[in-house]
């Protein structure tokens, strides 16, 4: 993808909360969102014709709602800090990467690295997610209504990953303190990832996440919890086979 020539971007103010990316460049959308200040009246935004654009609504740091009417490319909502983004379509790689707070809902499917390194907020994927979902997550909550691919939650440090469907191979490899809840089958567990008991606090936590993600008719008790065996927390040569 070619870089946008900044000099060609029109310098005009936008009272409108509807952005048609078929008519205006991405730069204008993101600039307008970044110019928002706390207490702004422009709290509801709509993005038309994203047509797979990358970096839609990245770096937003105000509590506004953003409805994206269509599918997006890479990194939609990247580093989101407080806004509620809904993608009425599917999302490309890295949706909600490094999210800080707020929420992102993808009505369709998500590609690789969904919620990668996320530090907070809620990412909901109503379809399936591809490989590396929640990779290196650092506090984000992710709820996937469908299945997730291989190497998901690799080196996940904290936060919660909820999967209503199945998980692929090497789930939670080298996991730290993140919690994984899977309702369906798991292809295989990664190094140091084990199934764990579902205690009452986990059931309560999971039910809260399901409620927040708009999941109905599914009970927390249907899930298995996975987490770290903590055997790789301090390097020991006797564990070398696990590396």
């Amino acid at each position, binding site marked *: *993808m070619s*870089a946008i020539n*900044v000099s060609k971007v029109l310098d005009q103010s936008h009272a409108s909360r509807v952005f048609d990316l078929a008519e205006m460049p*991405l*730069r204008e959308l*993101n*600039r307008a969102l*970044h110019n928002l200040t706390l207490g702004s009246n422009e709290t509801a935004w709509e993005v038309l014709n994203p047509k797979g654009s*990358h*970096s839609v609504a*990245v*770096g937003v*740091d105000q509590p506004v709602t953003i409805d994206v009417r269509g599918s997006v*490319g*890479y*990194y939609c909502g*990247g*580093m989101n*800090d407080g806004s509620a983004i809904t993608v009425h379509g599917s999302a490309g*790689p*890295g949706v909600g*990467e*490094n999210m*800080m707070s707020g929420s992102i809902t993808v009505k369709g499917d998500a590609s*690789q*690295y969904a919620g*990668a*390194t996320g*530090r907070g907020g809620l990412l909901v994927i109503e379809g399936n997610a591809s490989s*590396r979902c929640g*990779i*290196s997550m*650092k*506090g984000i909550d992710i709820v996937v209504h469908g299945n997730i691919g291989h190497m998901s939650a*690799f*080196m996940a*440090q*904290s936060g919660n990953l909820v999967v209503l469907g199945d998980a692929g191979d090497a789930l939670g490899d*080298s996991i*730290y*303190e993140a919690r994984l809840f899977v309702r369906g089958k798991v292809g295989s567990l990664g190094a140091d990832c084990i199934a764990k008991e579902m205690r009452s606090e986990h059931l309560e936590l999971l039910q809260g996440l399901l409620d927040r993600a708009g999941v109905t008719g599914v009970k927390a008790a249907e899930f298995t919890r996975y987490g770290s065996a903590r055997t790789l*927390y*301090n*390097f020991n*040569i*006797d564990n070398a086979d696990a590396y």
Partner: protein
Amino acid sequence: MTYRNPPTTPRKSATFDDYTLSEIRRAAATGIYDIRGAGAKRKLPHFDDLLVLGASISRYPLEGYRERCDTGVVLGSRHAKKPIELKIPITIAGMSFGSLSGPAKEALGRGATLSGTSTTTGDGGMTEEERGHSKTLVYQYLPSRYGMNPRDLRRADAIEIVIGQGAKPGGGGMLLGQKISDRVAEMRTLPKGIDQRSASRHPDWTGPDDLEIKILELREITDWEKPIYVKVGGARPYYDTALAVKSGADVVVIDGMQGGTAATQEVFIENVGQPTLACIRPAVQALQDLGMHRKVQLIISGGIRNGADVAKALALGVDAVSIGTAALVALGDNDPRWEAEYNELGTTAGAYDDWHEGRDPAGITTQDPELMERLDPIAAGRRLANYLKVMTLEAQTIARACGKNSLHNLEPEDLVALTIEAAAMAGVPLAGTNWIPGKNGF
């Protein structure tokens, strides 16, 4: 009288030298490879293998201390709305909080600011010590993404996407649990006291096409204001530079194998990557082939020690150099005043490299509160500023002798090599000849 054959002098193997033998014994006893900080310690072709040709008849020198020799450099002029302007072409390389103490980061910021140059964050995220004391701060976007957040991204003056380090191209790191203090654990979202394994690759992109989109995302988040650097370990400098340019980088940083690290396997440090000297000409050639030399700036790092190194690197075509290990030494690391304590740690001043253990007597590579107090950030910052000033004056002296009114006017023609190896790597003639070995191809 009986004849006795003359005894054979005991002979040690060049292959199994004392150090190698000690490493075999240590490995056998402990069952783990040696992890250490710093960069390659073996002797490598380096800037010492080049000489500068001062002016005489064919060139006309400038007067030292009289005639101006500019040192300023602008980094990030390709796309960024706010390129960085530095007074000197020597920057401070990324060194993490966690690996370094808070006072050490503050001292780096103070010294760099006094000298008109930049500091760089590191794996631990941005600290107030560093942001508060660095007029110009480069924020590293690392595979681990420790402490990464959009607020700090916007508080930075430039963003450096770290793909690799010279000491360990392709390798991750290991910060042992004793350095994961409460503060470090909080910044890195890790339980206190565990060994921290930092990633060797970015989690959310896998190749140059992804990198291009990642750069676009970072530009969008920061409204195209900040220069985007791309830093790679010196392994395949021609192709990595070309791909970084293709991906949209404003600045390419190449870190040669003498570049330091906080903690990696000794065998990795000494055997992976290429010498700094070998990385420059291929990187410059890539920029020239793409018509981007001086448009995308090139920073080289890894074993830069003095103004001669700076002058030679600039003559080979780089726009600036970066220092890490040398900056730590300027702050007071490995100082002989702590010799007794270095001895207690089984080493000596000048050789201490177990930075990951957190017991640095100089209080620089530690999180121990008592040791940290040994470093006065104001005095250490002044020492760093003095050192940067000396390096700059040295480089200017050499440049003036070559007739240059700017450090950036130094050129390969100002250099010859002492060895065939250095001549081939640097692409300059062997001294006394017009022979450049291996001129065609890398």
